[in-house]
């Protein structure tokens, strides 16, 4: 077997392709065997952790989010970190597989399946993290019923749903020939196992006829191209959850690309980790050779350097410009603040150390070095997302410290358990997938080996808080004017004099007995319209009575001034023509006569002559904050979605054609 394949490139012996195929299949089907004791133990442990996660989440649903460490100010924490992390990991997969496929990198053949599967599982765990973070998961349907396309969350919903569908479709299309291989047409159906029947159904009757092969390749090539922009859109939109807010450290134009690079970076590290594990567990050393690790390692170095570059670009500008809010953030994140140590630990162990480990040549131990670097990067990228979310929430524009609040966040057991449950789910999905489906693409490997030779595809077939008001003493409630002590004496004297005057004034109007009567009118004065008020007692005009004029407003009376009546009993004051009134400019005028502080006579009338009240815009404009979305935004989103979905439809049409061309 060894020798046969060893000569695959050579000219001499003709290769027995059927034999080759069956040899490869034998090796790649090993993982599909019934689980061993060890595997059962692994699956059992994962199930236990998942159950613990389910329990923690149920506990959270029963008690509300108060069981988490999140509070006022720091209201997003570990769950959002998990969300960004898993969506990030999901990138690697499909994006790398698609790029390698499009560029014709032949060494991809043994890693694409794993990469595509990572995408689907990471999305399956990442997307629900947002729902776990929600205060009212029971109202999730509101996103559909009342969805607002202006919200980046809706963009996320569309984008992630599109990506998930696309990734599943892509994964499936690339698996069709393997389904056919693993469930070959047999004479009698009874002899097929359940798995074979399912595979047979999923294979769409693929028989590898030239026509079917052409259709399949067309579908696969189309998916590989369309999935790249979709993948990029997903992490860009995730970054916009942060980028679209007005917060220091988040409101950054490079957030889209920064997150996309971060996602591919952590995703590639994720793939390498998975590759090392599967290689070891299922003895795939012949298929996952140094060639794949070498090339992915180079990609990882490039992404690592890019991430260093983006990190520098992001934080250097904030630190150098040193706007007040940025300054506080940088202090919290990288200076003496609570996250200084974590940040620099991340920078050293999650960013620079992996780069150094991979850059310093040491060829012999490539795979272990890559594994250590990848694990450091994975942990580091989770920590980095935490460091993007929490310190920014801790330093809003209005410093909470000025209200006597020091925000802090410590995740609780609920959050950690749910998080562990999430990771366990991810591993479980992967484990089960590897037990049910071939983890390395059989047909692509066979195709590569037979058409290009084992070496050329990198296969070695030798086998392969509160609260505010605080501690500063509560200032005494003072009278509005600041009165020094000596002034108090003067004040008392003045008060007595004033009381005397008021008493004297109060005595005056009661002389003739009957109360004063007021009537309001208006007239044209020398300098424009005037308000008038006639003061009478027993039908006789009274002179020298001060009349106060006011205009009624929604929540109070606006004082226009006080005028004494003339000998004819009429007091007049200029009408404020600029003051907005009713539709015709009518003003609700109040005239009153006061004795001391007590109002002794009052009259009210509606008088024209004010400005007409500015009309209010009764209908909402198209704006981001309005129920009506801007046309350009809607058009863009609809256009993008329809391009992607019509491409998906095209792929599905190819699959239908494959089904139709199969023999009955």
């Amino acid at each position, binding site marked *: 077997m060894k020798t046969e394949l060893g000569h695959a490139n050579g000219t001499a012996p003709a290769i027995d392709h059927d034999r080759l195929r069956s040899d490869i299949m034998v090796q790649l089907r090993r993982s599909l065997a019934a689980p061993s004791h060890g595997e059962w133990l692994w699956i059992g442990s994962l199930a236990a952790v998942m159950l613990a996660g389910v329990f923690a989440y149920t506990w959270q649903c029963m008690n509300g989010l108060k069981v988490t460490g999140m509070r006022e100010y720091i209201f997003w924490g570990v769950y959002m970190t998990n969300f960004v992390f898993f969506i990030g990991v999901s990138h690697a997969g499909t994006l790398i597989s698609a790029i390698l496929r499009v560029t014709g990198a032949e060494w991809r053949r043994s890693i694409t399946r794993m990469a595509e599967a990572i995408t689907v599982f990471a999305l399956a765990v990442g997307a629900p993290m947002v729902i776990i973070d929600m205060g009212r998961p029971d*109202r999730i349907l509101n996103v559909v019923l009342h969805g607002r396309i202006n919200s*980046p969350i809706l963009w996320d919903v569309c984008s992630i749903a599109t990506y998930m569908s696309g990734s599943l479709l892509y994964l499936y299309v690339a698996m069709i020939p393997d389904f056919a291989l693993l469930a070959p047409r047999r004479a009698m159906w009874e002899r097929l196992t359940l798995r074979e029947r399912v595979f047979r159904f999923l294979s769409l009757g693929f028989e590898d006829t030239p026509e079917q092969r052409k259709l399949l390749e067309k579908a696969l090539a189309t998916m590989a191209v369309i999935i790249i922009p979709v993948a990029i859109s997903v992490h860009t939109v995730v970054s916009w959850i942060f980028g679209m807010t007005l917060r220091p450290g988040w409101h950054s134009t490079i957030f889209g690309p920064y997150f996309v690079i971060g996602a591919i970076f952590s995703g590639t590290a994720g793939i390498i980790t998975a590759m090392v594990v599967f290689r070891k567990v299922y003895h795939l050393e012949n298929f996952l050779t140094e060639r794949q690790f070498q090339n992915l390692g180079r990609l990882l170095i490039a992404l690592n350097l890019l991430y260093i570059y983006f990190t520098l670009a992001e934080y250097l500008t904030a630190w150098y410009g040193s706007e007040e809010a940025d300054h506080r953030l940088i202090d919290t994140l990288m200076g003496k603040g609570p996250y200084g140590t974590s940040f620099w630990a991340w920078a050293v162990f999650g960013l620079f150390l992996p780069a150094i480990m991979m850059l310093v040549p040491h060829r012999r131990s490539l795979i272990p070095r890559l594994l250590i670097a990848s694990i450091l990067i994975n942990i580091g990228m989770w920590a980095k997302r935490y460091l993007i979310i929490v310190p920014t929430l801790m330093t809003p524009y209005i410093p909470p410290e000025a*209200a006597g609040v020091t925000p802090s966040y410590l995740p609780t057991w609920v959050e950690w358990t749910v998080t562990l449950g999430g990771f366990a789910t991810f591993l479980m999905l992967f484990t089960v997938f590897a037990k049910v489906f071939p983890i390395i693409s059989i047909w692509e490997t066979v195709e590569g080996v037979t058409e290009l030779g084992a070496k050329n595809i990198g296969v070695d077939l030798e086998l392969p808080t509160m609260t505010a008001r605080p501690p500063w003493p509560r200032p005494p409630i003072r009278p509005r004017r600041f009165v020094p002590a000596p002034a108090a004496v003067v004040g008392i004297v003045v008060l007595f004099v004033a009381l005397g005057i008021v008493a004297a004034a109060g005595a005056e109007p009661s002389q003739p007995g009957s109360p004063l009567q007021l009537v309001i009118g208006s007239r044209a004065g020398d300098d424009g319209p005037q308000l008038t008020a006639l003061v009478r007692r027993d039908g006789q005009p009274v002179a020298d009575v001060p009349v106060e004029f006011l205009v009624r*407003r929604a929540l*109070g009376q606006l004082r226009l001034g006080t005028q004494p009546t003339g000998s004819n009993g009429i007091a007049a004051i200029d009408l404020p023509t600029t003051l907005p009134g009713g539709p015709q400019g009518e003003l609700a005028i109040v005239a009153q006569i006061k004795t001391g502080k007590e109002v002794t006579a009052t009259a009210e009338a509606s008088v024209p002559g004010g400005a007409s009240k500015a009309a209010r815009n009764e209908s909402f404009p198209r704006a981001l904050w309005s129920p009506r979305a801007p046309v350009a935004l809607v058009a863009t989103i609809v256009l993008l979605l329809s391009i992607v979905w019509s491409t998906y439809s095209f792929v599905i049409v190819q699959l239908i054609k494959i089904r139709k061309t199969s023999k009955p």
Partner: protein
Amino acid sequence: MNETRREFLGGSLIACGALGAGLLAAKTVRKLQEPPTPVPPAPTLVPALTADGKLVQVEATAMAAPAHPTHMTHSAALTGAAARQGIPGRKWVMVIDLAKCSGCSNCTIACNKMHGTPTDRQWMRVFRMQDGPQQAPYWFPKPCFHCDNPPCTKVCPVGATFKRDDGIVLIDNERCIGCRFCMAACPYSTRYFNWGRPDNAKMKDATYSPETGVPRRVGTVEKCDFCPEMARAGTLPACVTSCDMAAIYFGDQLEDAVSNSEETVRLAQLLEERAAYRYLAELGTEPRVYYLPPKNRDFPGPVPKKSRGHPIAPPAPGAHDHHAATT
């Protein structure tokens, strides 16, 4: 000319007097003549002063009750879709005079009391600000700014938080999914979240309205609502009436008038004379709350502390409890 006018006025006054006396006489006579049986309701006549100073009797309906809704009659808070409509013809605005604020936080206490807000959140929160080490510290009461370009409303995925055409930004906690994106979007840290099950014992029977925000619901967001149900009733918000310093003004921008606990003044004039500004208006949020700079203060300001600008003096823990106990 003056002479003629005075004569004319005098003349008309006599006429008015005569008219009034005549009417009074007529009324008396009629009263005497008619039997004390109930009369069919005649249009009520009220005296009015004409432009030339004559006193005439007109129907009451022509005089009172101005056509525009000065007097708001119904005070019940609205629910459902109606709560998404603003109060007709209004555009609410708040002005806070930092020169008058003594930092007593009566506004906070009154607001918490009125809305039944737990003590760990303050819709109206008083900050102790200091713009720079050489600048005097001052008290800074901060409600929701009810921005005209509200970042919170932009990002809400379900339209649970919304802007009304009377300028108020409200939250419908029957629709809110609790994603807290609005809290992230608000640059003024104005929003609060119901982390646990809220204690609604005092308003068990209340019908929920976004205008009052009660009863509260677990997993939803809440914040200062500008007290629309109070404005509908023609009364000022609790923070305004509770302010002994009369530092907070509230009113209708379209009427060009704002009222504090003591008086009503013209908005445009106040903003102009006192060089009003809006907090962090450079963010483009168009806040509906204006601040009057703390110039010529009425009281001694907070004690200055040395620090690089801003945050000053974190409080000792437990200080708040004491504060709450005094409520």
